[in-house]
């Protein structure tokens, strides 16, 4: 027996508000007993319905890599941010560039990062990125020393409100491509969006 629309909406909304992390469709479906479980399509419709009901309110539904979660409305972020004594942490250029490099060129080794940025990468930066769970080691390059290969994580996408890496604007526009001679250098980023 299917649940009525308004009850379904209420349940999904309550669950998303009560849980402290994004919820996938599967996890949402898991709330229901077999006989009352809505189809994935009905769940999506309900989520779309909830999303539109947040117009003008203090919260909104955000879909990120891990699923759906409620967040406070960005237009009142300045006010809400005052609730915390400490201002949000500013990230150093080195950290953001390293993060961007891993995001756009993953998987990369620390050596790759250093050769592109032209300076050594401090262990502190890698540690911070790993502690924040934004990057992680996904393997080792089969070259002497077997250096670790880094990639970004789902938490990275979640933190920046992204569903996938595709949502980051491309940095390899075709028109600014170098002549043939340099074509080889453009290839590695093909893998970024897959």
């Amino acid at each position, binding site marked *: 027996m299917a649940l009525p629309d308004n009850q379904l909406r209420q349940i999904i909304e309550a669950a998303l508000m*009560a849980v402290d992390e994004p919820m996938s469709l599967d996890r949402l479906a898991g709330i229901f007993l077999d006989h009352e479980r809505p189809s994935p399509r009905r769940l999506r419709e309900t989520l779309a319905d909830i999303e539109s009901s947040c117009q003008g309110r203090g919260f909104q539904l955000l879909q990120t890599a891990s699923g759906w*979660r409620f967040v406070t409305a960005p237009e009142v972020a300045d006010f809400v941010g005052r609730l915390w004594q400490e201002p949000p942490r500013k990230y150093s*250029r*080195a950290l953001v560039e390293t993060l*961007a490099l891993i995001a756009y060129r993953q998987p990369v080794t620390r050596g790759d990062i250093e050769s592109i940025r*032209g*300076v050594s990468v401090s262990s502190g930066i890698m540690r911070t990125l790993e502690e924040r769970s934004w990057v992680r080691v996904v393997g080792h390059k089969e070259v002497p020393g077997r250096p670790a290969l880094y990639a970004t994580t789902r938490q990275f996408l979640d933190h920046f409100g992204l569903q996938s890496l595709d949502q980051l604007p491309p*940095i390899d526009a075709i028109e600014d491509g*170098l002549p043939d001679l340099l074509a080889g250098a453009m290839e590695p980023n093909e893998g970024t969006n897959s």
Partner: protein
Amino acid sequence: MAELTAAPQQQVELPLVKVAGKPIEKLPEDLYIPPEALEVFMDAFEGPLDFLLYLIRRQNIDILQVDVARLTEQYVAYVEAMRLLKLELAADYLVMAALLAEIKSRALLPVVQADDEEEVEDPRTELLRRLQEYEKIQNGAEHIRARPELGRDFFKAQIQAPEAAPRPHADLPLAELLSAMAEVMRRVSFKENHQVAYEPLSTRARMSDLLERLKPGQFLSFTDLLEASESKAGVVVTFLATLELVKEGLVDIVQTQTFGPVQIGLRDGST
């Protein structure tokens, strides 16, 4: 009579700088930075590539249009200034200075075709490729910075959750109970030589019933304990259960007068 005087302003005179054997009379016009601030200025860069990109961007031209000779002059001037002021400068900057000087000197030489088919990589091309790649990464960093961020532009909305639903009871099938009993019996017979005697279950169950019905300090007659609905077997079971309870010291049987009613009560711990 001591008088506090301000220390004389250190006038840093830039000594004659030679680049590629050619003396540089003055620093490039765009180097307005007071020498004391030079270190701070240079600190703002993430290394020689970043610094080169800054110099290129200031000219507002595409990387591919860069005049390497001019770029080299500007770059070397800064590096020399740092060196002469005895300010610490990462070795990377010196390596880059050497590379730039090499590129510049090559540009003056006629192109020599290599004997074999292999192309010799032009260091200028390599440098421009690196600069372009780094510029892309800097753009990428800007894209990430521009993203709305959790904890800055939006915050988790989390409200008080309801109580967890009570934990459901696990299923315990009768088969499992029986196999557990069989297991206990198996262990007991392995462990002990003497046979543990078990009364028929009905007697055991009746013993529990009787204990429940008897209240401390209160005696019931044997007939009170009998159920009218039960057959003769019921009387026997109750009787056996009573005897068993007496044997185990759980109840006392009292008869106040000969042929009087047999009274059964819980054994008082104090007697």
